[in-house]
């Protein structure tokens, strides 16, 4: 779990240029981390590559917080 969160955090920090301290499980990509819709699509793409999972468009739409992403990845691994 910790490891997944760490890797997800690194991707978010790189992609969105936010501080690591801003990234917590409750943080919303758009509201809290300043992402626009296309940024979220790109984040999901990077998560797919990083964790070697396929995230369907339907599932991707439900991923709105850091916690959603971590939970989703854990459920697939």
């Amino acid at each position, binding site marked *: 779990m910790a490891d997944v969160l760490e890797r997800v955090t690194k991707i978010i920090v790189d992609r969105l240029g936010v501080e690591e301290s801003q990234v917590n499980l409750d943080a919303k990509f758009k509201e809290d981390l300043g992402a626009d819709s*296309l940024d979220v*699509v*790109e984040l999901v*793409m990077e998560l797919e590559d990083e964790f070697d999972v396929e995230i369907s468009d339907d599932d991707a739409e439900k991923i709105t917080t850091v916690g959603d992403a971590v939970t989703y990845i854990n459920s697939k691994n």
Partner: protein
Amino acid sequence: MNLDGKIALVTGASRGIGKAIALELARLGADVVINYAGNEQKAKDVSEEIKAIGRRSFIIQCDISDSDAVQSMVKETVDQFGRLDILVNNAGITRDNLLMRMKEQEWDDVINTNLKGVFLCTKAVTRQMMKQRSGRIINISSVVGRIGNAGQANYTAAKAGVIGLTKASARELAARGITVNAIAPGFIATDMTDELPIEAKEQLIGQIPLGTLGEVEDIAAAAAFLASNGAKYITGQVLGVDGGMAM
């Protein structure tokens, strides 16, 4: 103009305009994937011609209105060539009929290939191009999508749709370094226009200020420009290559 090291995918590149575009991109240095629907031999010939000038090329059969097939086509391209810089959405069909006589099937076939096909291919390459932070998408619309044409309600609607799609995707993808433009050819001498009856052709030529049908090379030159570095600041535009039909 130079496209050395660029990877291009041209849909409907076995004949006509698509073939001319594929050859021109290759001549300028690009490696080119040749998509076709049914004419395997013609696709192979184009591919061989490209290899003969020292560029890499392979052919791939795919109905661009089939989402799964489109996704595997793009995957195959990226697997083999490692990236994808240029997509030319060229494949298209006609099923002409007067509105009053047009069958639903004729409408659906043309919308599925000429409009939905462009959407599916654009969607499928976007992932790769977004990652690269660069890409060129060139959509082949038509002059009739700008000015209308009797007997082609389906085709005209699809081609006008392609112009809208071009502008929407240009806006969405601009921030990621991807440009999307359309070319609107007028009447170009290919298999597609060969089918027209002589009187229809003569009447058509009468509407062309420059007074002749266009050649496939005219469209290829425009596509090469839009793919080149010189066009890096151009996006969301419709370039008419039509002898002056639409002004």
